[in-house]
Each structure stands twice: as C-alpha cells, then as structure tokens.
C-alpha cells in the first residue's frame, strides 16, 4: 500500500460534507420584497432578522419578518387565514413538523428549486416527514427530539452507575431516589416528570413509550391503523402506574414548562423534555446547574425512541416571487446559517454534518452526544393522516389521557380509539 493511498483512505474517513460546502452562487434579487412568517420564541425572532439582513446583503432582496403567535395552534389558525384567502402577502412560512400534511396544498414543491445534494444533507427522517405525495412541502430548519434528563449527582448518591437503559430501570431508580430524598427531608420530591396534559405534547410522549415497546406508530405509513395492540397496552399501563407513584398526580396537567419548573427547581430525579431545557437547566441561575445529564429515552424492549419535533420553511403557492422565496429558504436552511443558529441559539441543526462541526460541538456539547437520538427520531403519523392529523392526534392524546387519569383501562381506551380513528380516516 502506497503512502498516497493511505492518505486517500484517511481522507475518506472524514465525513465528506464536513470538509467543504459547495459554494452557492446567489442570484441578484434587487427589487424583490419577501415576507417570512417566523416564530418569536426566545431568541428566534432576533436570529431570523439577522439572517434576513444577511440575505439582503447577498442578493439585494428586501426581506421582512412577520412575528407570529408563540402557541403552535394559534399560529396554524393565523396561517390558515392567509392561505385560505390565497394571500400573496406572505412568501415563506415557518411550519411545524406535523403540519406538512395539513398545509401541503398551499405549498410549492421544493424539489423543483433545491438541488438534490442540498436536500441530501438533511436528516432523511425530516425530509421524509416533509414529503407529501412525492412533493417536498418544506425544507427542514431545525429539529427536536424527546430526551431523558437526569440528575447525575443523585444517581451517584444512590449508587447507580449511569442513566437507565430500560423503563423498568427508570421506574425502579426513580422510586429509590424519591424515597431517599423524601426521607432526607424533601416531601415534594418526585421521581419522574413528563408531559401528561391532554395536548399535542402527550402525543409525543406516548408515541415514545409505545414505539419503545414495539407498539408501532398509531397509523402506519401505509395507512394501517395499528394502535390497538398488546404492546401499546403494556406501554400505557406502565405510564398509568407512574401517575401518583413516581410522578406527581398533577402530571396529567403538565406541559413542557410545568415539568421543567419541577426538575429545574431540584424536585425531580428524571424529566422527559426537548433539547431547549438543557441550556436553561445549565444556566447560571439554575439550582441544578452542573448536576444535569442528558441521555436517550429508555427502551421498553424494542429500543429507545424519541419523538421527532422541529420546524421547517415552506414557500407559499400564492407567493408572487416563488423562485426568490425558494432562494431565501435555501439560504435560511443552509449549512452556514444553521451553524450560526446552533452556536448562538442552540437550535439543533437538521444537517447531519453539523453534528461533527467542532465549533457547534464546542458551543453545545450535548448535540454531539445526541446524534443517534436525532437520526432515529420517530415522526408522528402526520404524513399519512394529512389534513386530518390534528383529529388523529386529538383522538390519540385524549384516549391516552383517559388511561392516565384512570377513566378507562388501556384495553378499553385503545379499542375505542381504533374505532374513532377508523371514523376519522374514513
């Protein structure tokens, strides 16, 4: 083997995408005005405005950023008013991971405008999620996945060597730590907090349980309604057993922030939440700063599963400058821009290569550890349910909530849910 071929082989080992990004030739868009409807949670608006200014510099186009409501449901209502009226006022919409099916008819097919190799940079799961009837409805912008947060200091204190690999382990560890901490003088300490309110977040949590038990994804991609099966029953029974034992009885009213409030104030050993909680839990004013670890969610026998979240960018079919809008979307979702957002705002990139980027890993080390979680994230059945996704999800989280609050057994709930889903998907 020659020296040259050894070097060549070493070069092969370095991920190709991390080496160099193909330079994009940006067009001259002077005179064009584009409007982006974007989120304004935390640093979001600031980052989007900066990116808009940079795009203007690059192409000469004027970009306006429209601030939209924080609550996803409210935002969808606003979007539908614009889209229903075929309004050309907004060119680019920031859309939730579960909306492509609902909004597909209003979207431009981005396969027409974005080169294949650029699309291939993103996680395949996010691209699959955004592809409806063979059309790329939106280009992924940032991603989310359900994670297990744990108190590293407490695990050590009670002699556990690491985070739990299975739900059984988690239940046992939570019980031991909760008993110990309560005996040590904190009566309001709980083992495990999560999102149990009757809302979209519960669909994510419950989907993670049932997939990790091998219970399928509610409605399979081919349209089969698979939710009523013994493994899902088992998963829901397990979750029901937590309520009032290792989880507070009020967990069935908790969303992300309620769970975080308990975990971050030092009153819980484990928490299921999205990546955003990491930066806040490790912030300077956090009582658990330096004591928090992040791991993939435990397995129920069929491996760990994390629900896929995140946001993408859609070009409106009613835009008068569809091509220019597609250029803007390409810019916002590009390697450089996602890198900037990952470093400055700890938004998880959708481009795989960024998880090997030294600058990103230095700013947010957890992104490197979570690579496997993000690549294996399970999408909710929004593609197959299409415009009926919200009905499907509402029926699902209502059924799960009824099990968690003890109104019906898991078997009854799933039998009823199956009938309800058939009705919805008729």
């Amino acid at each position, binding site marked *: 083997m020659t020296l040259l071929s050894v070097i060549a082989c070493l070069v092969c080992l370095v991920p190709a995408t991390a080496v160099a990004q193909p330079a994009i030739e940006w067009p001259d868009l002077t005179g064009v005005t584009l409007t982006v409807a974007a989120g304004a949670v935390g640093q979001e608006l600031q980052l989007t405005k900066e990116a808009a200014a940079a795009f203007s510099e690059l192409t000469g186009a004027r970009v306006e950023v429209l601030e939209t409501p924080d609550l996803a449901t409210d935002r969808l209502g606003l979007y*539908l*008013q614009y889209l*229903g009226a075929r309004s050309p006022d907004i060119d680019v919409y920031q859309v939730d991971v579960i909306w492509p099916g609902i909004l597909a008819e209003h979207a431009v097919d981005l396969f027409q405008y974005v080169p294949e190799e650029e699309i291939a940079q993103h996680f395949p799961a996010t691209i699959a999620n955004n592809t409806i009837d063979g059309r790329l409805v939106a280009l992924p912008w940032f991603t989310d996945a359900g994670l297990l947060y744990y108190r590293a200091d407490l695990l050590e204190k009670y002699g556990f060597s690491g985070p739990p690999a299975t739900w059984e382990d988690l239940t046992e560890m939570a019980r031991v730590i909760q008993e110990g901490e309560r005996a040590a003088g904190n009566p309001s300490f709980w083992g495990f907090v999560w999102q149990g309110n*009757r809302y979209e977040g519960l669909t994510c949590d419950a989907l993670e349980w049932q997939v990790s038990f091998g219970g399928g994804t509610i409605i399979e991609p081919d349209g089969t309604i698979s939710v009523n099966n013994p493994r899902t029953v088992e998963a829901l029974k397990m979750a029901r057993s937590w309520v009032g034992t290792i989880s507070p009885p*009020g*967990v069935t*009213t908790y969303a992300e922030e309620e769970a975080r409030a308990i975990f971050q104030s030092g009153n819980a050993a484990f928490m299921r939440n999205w990546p955003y909680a990491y930066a806040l839990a490790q912030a300077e004013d956090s009582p658990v700063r330096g004591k928090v670890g992040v791991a993939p969610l435990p397995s129920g026998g069929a491996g760990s599963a994390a629900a896929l979240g995140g946001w993408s960018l859609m070009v409106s079919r009613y835009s008068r400058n569809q091509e220019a809008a597609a250029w803007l979307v390409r810019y916002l979702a590009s390697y450089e821009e996602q890198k900037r957002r990952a470093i400055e705002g700890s938004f998880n990139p959708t481009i795989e290569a960024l998880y090997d980027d030294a600058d990103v890993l230095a700013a947010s080390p957890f992104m490197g550890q979570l690579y496997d979680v993000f690549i294996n994230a399970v999408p909710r059945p929004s593609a197959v349910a299409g415009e009926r996704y919200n009905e499907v999800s509402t029926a699902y989280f209502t059924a799960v909530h009824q099990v968690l609050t*003890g109104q019906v057994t898991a078997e009854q709930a799933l039998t009823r849910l199956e009938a309800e889903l058939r009705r919805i998907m008729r």
Partner: protein
Amino acid sequence: MPWGEMGIDRLEPVLVEAGRIERRAATTLGARQARLAWILLLPTLAVLVGVALYPLVTTFYNSLTDARLGSSRSVQFVGLENYRWLLTDPVFLEAVGNTLYFTVVSVSAELVLGLLIALVIHSQFPGRGLVRAAVLVPWAIPTVVSAQMWRWMYNDVFGVVNDLLMRVGLLDAPLAWTAVPGLAMHAIIAVDVWKTTPFMALLLLAGLQVIPRDLYEAARVDGASQMRQFFSITLPLLRPAMLVALIFRTLDALRVFDVIFVMTAGASGTESMATYNRRVLIEFQQLGYGSAVSVVIFFVIFVFVLLYVRLLRGNEA
C-alpha cells in the same frame, strides 16, 4: 222618564258618523306613525340582519357542506350528513352533557349565594358602600386572568389551595384539582360561581330595591315573622328580577368557553359545547362540521330562551 231613553234613536246616526270620522283619522295617523316607526327602526334592523341573521344563515348553510377552513378545495353539499355524524359523535354528546351539568350546578349555586349576598348588602349597616364595591371585585376581573390565577392556585405542587387545606388539616396529601376527572369539573364550577355570583347579587339587589317598604311595615303590623315576610313578600316580588338574572346567567353558562379553555382546555371530562366547537373549527379545520356544532348549540340555547320568555310572560299575566 230616564234621560237616557229619550232621543237615543235620534242621536244614533250622529254618533255613528262621528265614530267613522274618528276611525278614519286614526287610520291615517296610525299608518303615518307606523311608517315613521319602520323608518326609524330600519338602521337597527339593517344592523341586526348584518350581524345576526346573515352569520346565522351562513353558518346554517355551511353546516350542510363539507367545507374546510383555509382549504381551496371545492365545497360539496352533503345535506344532513354532518348532523348524522354529530348525533353519533361521543365527544360532542359528552360535551352537551358536561355543559348542561355545568349550567345547572353553577347557576343554582350562583342564585342561592347571590340572593344571600343581595339580602346582606340590601340591609343597613355601616360601611355598606365599601362592601357593595368589594363584592364586585371578582366580576371586574377578566375571566381569562382570573381563570389563569385560579389555575395556579389549584396547582398540585405549588398551589395555595392545597397548602391552605393541608394546614387546617382537611387534606392529608395534595390533590391535583384540575387533573382528576370529576374533581376538575367542580373546580371549574367553583371558579365560575366565585366570578359570577356578584353579577347575580347585583341584579337581585336592584330587584330588592324596588319592593315598597310599606309592605314590610304592614306585615310587621300584622305580626308576620321575618321568615314569613321573606317567603310571602320578598320572594314573590323578586321573581321578575330573578328571572332576568337567570336568563342572563343560563345563556352565559351554556356558552361557557374561557374559564374551561384556560383551566383544562376541555381535558378530564370538562369539554363544553363551545370548547369542542372551537376545537373542530380551528384545530380540525372542519368548517362544515363545526358549523353543524354551532347550529346545534344555537338550538339548545334557543330552547332555554323560549322557556324563560314563557315564564316571564306568565309572570306579567
């Protein structure tokens, strides 16, 4: 000879003629006045047609189609299909039951408590003005704000309600007030009663103030007890005010939305007709089906209105 009998036959033609003239004058005057009345009413009628009749008719029309919110797909006329689905929709039927339960329990409690408060602030005592103003505080806070406030007070971990009840020894362990089915609905009813009892009290106080004082004096002279005075004078004479207050509160309660939306968003057996309607219309984008829900809510409320109007009329007679 009685004077009436004399010449009555001679007078008759004159009287008949006079009557005819008077009637003619009355008809032209009446017609003119009626026309003026219509002209003056026209703007009001136009507004009513614009803001009440038109939306109502549109909603009814939409309820016969499969229209979707924000969809450009062509709309199909489906007849009564939506209504057929609605009658077999378990979530909607549950919502109707929840709403009726909420209405009956909350309005009854508000009536009893409102009457007690009205009687107290109707009597003479020092500082009455201050108490009357203080009673109105819950009514003055916007529902969304007070519901959010109560949500925090009901919180299972940080909530002040659990804390107080545990301190006085009524509870051993904290309760998740808005999470437990059964408990959640009553927690919401309690908030509604807290908020709208002042309104009930205010209307009843107005009713109390128009009852003539001399009736009570006469009763006292006759030796009627306080109890007897209440049941024989106060209660019957308060009936019109009570009915008006009940109409307002019942119609409000049947449309209950904000307090439930903020506190549980319809979870744990607290879905009301209005929260379900919003869910179907906005979250599911089912304009057609959601309109059918709206129409049914309209008729449920309409039945109550007819009932009360009947009662009021019986009262006047």
